[in-house]
């Protein structure tokens, strides 16, 4: 329904404005006299107020109005900003966010805002208005040079320029929809040259009930009135022919710009549209089916050996590769969508813990598939909290260690090969790996003799073992029993790999490697007896053919030598209990082996044959088969059959 569309728009944009206020308030706190930043926060509060008022979320409108007042004082008397003031405004932003969340969950966003109002009021000299004031619109329009020219020319061509002021019913719910209908009705009979408030503002329902458009048409005033009164919920229409006024342009020229224009004037709007995520997913699904059929077509063309057909299919394949890039690109979002919410959290957590922390963010424009972005927020919060809680020392300890009392937590993202890397690093106390090993031994996670042969990275990796906890005491921030192993599992479920490196006294670095996109992957298709499996190329270190004599046995485990060490060998026939194919039983003293990697560990997987490299669409097996061991999904291969995709992470011990 249209109503819910507008609601969704309100929620999405509301959240963007909350984010914008958070970002700029944080900047402002560092640089309290910067007028452009104040303007930016003000603009968001102002827009939110207008949106809330038009959607009739009264408490939200009142609260944002009070915030606006505080910001207005700041704007006029820069330098008055205090830390206390920031706390209050931040709290109010939090309240706004909660109200929007409430609205998103079907509530009406009402809550007790009196404490906030009282605090905000105390920060301003003027009284806080209890009801939200909305933007006043100046009624007569002013035109810039270009618009003047258009109007002049239209007169020459026999059109009449009008200014039409339309007032909607006070009870109109979907104001933007009515505006749209009015514009459409007008569009059939002439051309809209200008609107006040500007069209974007009208679309955001950022106006009371009245708006004015400059319109050229060959119709008469009466005809236009009849057309407009046909649109429901239009209360009144006033039309004035402005042919005469155009003649005296100079007088109007310098007319002050309306309030609304002042706020939107700076926003250079990019030509973008918002697309419902579901539609993108549908597009993706359709494209996936296309890829499957493309494979089938390629094979058919190959067997028919018709030159015209082959050429057409080749061209189609190239186009669909481009198409794929475009579609995948559409699904990409910059990681700043997740990163944005962290500075506030870091500010709060470090205040709670009495630590001084500077947060740096790098590479926030790095893009990742939307489905991955949706999942990485929580584990990253965990890593950041971990760095603040366990990494960064208290200010006095830092000073005693000869460091700057302010610690730095850096969150960075970058793109390399076919992966995106996200790092959380800090210049804190680092990690004592021997202490880790001792903890792991005492918690029964590793045996004492294992510890002797462990490399440094392996020791650090212990942090991610399930059931492992180093927290000396339970703090409010982390160490609540949910450990880094959950972080590791979440990233691994996305096809990611987590690792950690540290230098005692210098700090630690947590790195996450993520695939760019989840749904289309390069896979090596392999045959095991009569079954076909796919192994993601990203997991494969190399493929090799070994002779029977290369296989050794230790501890009842087949091993081979690989890059100077012995690595275990797994026969997929055994792992997946593949039924023996009938007939084909000739003996070969060679094995096809795929070396897969997880962190620094390798395992060789034995298969019957390599079928080849394919771009496949990874599909979920669904909740029903979610817990299937070592299978991460499935794909439809060229002949329409389903091949399972192996989760090699589960196979590397």
């Amino acid at each position, binding site marked *: 329904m249209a109503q819910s569309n507008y609601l969704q728009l309100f929620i999405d944009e509301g959240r963007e404005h909350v984010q914008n206020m958070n970002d700029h308030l944080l900047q402002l706190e560092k640089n309290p006299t910067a007028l452009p930043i104040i303007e930016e926060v003000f603009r968001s509060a102002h827009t939110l107020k207008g949106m809330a008022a038009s959607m009739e979320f009264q408490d939200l409108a009142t609260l944002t109005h009070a915030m606006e007042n505080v910001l207005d004082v700041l704007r006029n008397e820069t330098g008055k900003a205090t830390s206390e003031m920031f706390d209050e405004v931040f709290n109010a932003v939090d309240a706004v966010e909660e109200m929007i969340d409430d609205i998103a969950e079907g509530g009406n966003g009402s809550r007790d805002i009196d404490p906030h109002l009282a605090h905000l009021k105390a920060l301003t000299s003027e009284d806080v208005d209890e009801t939200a004031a909305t933007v006043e619109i100046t009624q007569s329009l002013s035109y810039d040079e270009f618009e003047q020219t258009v109007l002049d020319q239209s007169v020459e061509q026999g059109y009449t320029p009008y200014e039409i002021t339309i007032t909607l019913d006070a009870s109109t719910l979907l104001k933007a929809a009515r505006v749209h209908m009015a514009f459409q009705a007008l569009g059939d009979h002439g051309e809209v040259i200008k609107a006040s408030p500007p069209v974007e503002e009208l679309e955001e329902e950022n106006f009371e009930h009245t708006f004015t458009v400059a319109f050229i048409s060959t119709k008469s005033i009466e005809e236009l009135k009849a057309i407009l009164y046909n649109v429901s919920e239009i209360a009144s229409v006033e039309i004035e022919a402005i042919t005469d006024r155009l003649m005296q342009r100079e007088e109007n020229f310098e007319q002050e710009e309306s309030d609304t224009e002042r706020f939107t004037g700076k926003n250079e709007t990019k030509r973008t549209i918002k697309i419902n995520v579901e539609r993108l997913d549908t597009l993706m699904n359709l494209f996936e089916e296309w890829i499957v059929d493309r494979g089938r077509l390629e094979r058919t063309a190959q067997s028919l050996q018709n030159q015209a057909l082959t050429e057409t299919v080749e061209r189609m394949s190239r186009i669909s590769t481009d198409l794929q890039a475009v579609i995948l690109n559409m699904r990409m979002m910059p990681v700043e969508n997740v990163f944005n919410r962290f500075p506030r959290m870091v500010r709060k957590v470090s205040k709670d813990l009495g630590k001084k922390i500077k947060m740096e963010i790098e590479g926030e424009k790095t893009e990742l598939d939307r489905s991955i972005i949706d999942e990485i927020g929580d584990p990253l919060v965990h890593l950041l909290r971990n760095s603040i809680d366990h990494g960064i020392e208290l200010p006095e300890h830092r000073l005693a260690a000869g460091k700057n009392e302010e610690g730095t937590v850096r969150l960075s993202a970058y793109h390399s090969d076919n992966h995106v890397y996200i790092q959380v690093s800090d210049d804190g106390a680092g990690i004592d790996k021997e202490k880790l090993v001792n903890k792991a031994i005492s918690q029964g996670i590793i045996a004492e003799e294992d510890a002797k042969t462990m490399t440094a990275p392996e020791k650090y990796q212990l942090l991610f073992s399930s059931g492992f906890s180093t927290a000396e005491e339970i703090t409010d921030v982390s160490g609540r029993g949910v450990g880094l192993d959950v972080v590791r599992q979440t990233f691994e479920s996305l096809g990611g790999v987590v690792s950690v490196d540290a230098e005692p006294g210098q700090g630690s670095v947590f790195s996450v490697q993520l695939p760019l996109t989840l749904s289309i992957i390069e896979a090596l298709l392999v045959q095991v007896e009569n079954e076909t499996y796919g192994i993601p190329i990203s997991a494969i270190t190399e493929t090799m053919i070994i002779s029977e004599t290369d296989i050794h046995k230790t501890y009842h485990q087949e091993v081979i030598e690989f890059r100077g060490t012995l690595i275990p060998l797994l026969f997929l026939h055994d792992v997946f209990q593949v039924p023996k194919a009938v007939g084909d039983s000739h003996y070969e003293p060679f094995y096809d082996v795929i070396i897969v990697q997880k962190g620094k560990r390798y395992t060789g997987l034995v298969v019957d044959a390599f079928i080849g490299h394919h771009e496949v669409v990874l599909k979920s097996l669904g909740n*029903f*088969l979610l817990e299937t061991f070592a299978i991460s999904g499935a794909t439809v291969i060229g002949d329409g059959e*389903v091949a399972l995709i192996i989760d090699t992470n589960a196979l590397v011990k």
Partner: protein
Amino acid sequence: MPTDTAQEKIVIFELNGEEYGLEVSRVQSIERMLPLTRVPGAPRPDIAGVMNLRGKITPVIDLRLCLGVEAAPYDKQTRILVVLGNDGAVGFIVDRANDLLDITETEIEGIPAGREDETYGLFQGVINRDPRIITLLETDKVLQ
């Protein structure tokens, strides 16, 4: 809640010569046998595999195995009922499916004594249309 006189359409299918039924409203489609891909280590032993149902990977349950009926090879009559569950569509392999029936709620009788093995909870009851006896499946239980 349906009233006592509520009408319902059921799909009749056969397993080992016996007739069973489930609500038409839960059936998305009835398919001829499709190629199955075995899923090693599937969480249930009665999962015959997954199939490609018009581009969607769909798990398939062999209803014979599920209901404790002796396994049998698939033939030309074998059908897959695609049933909508909470976790998406699931296929049920049955011997044949070739009838629809209108029933009323009041017709449903309890399961006769003597059938109280571990599959007991998988049935809603029986419909007695002498000489036909149709056992009604409790679809959500089968999918649990």
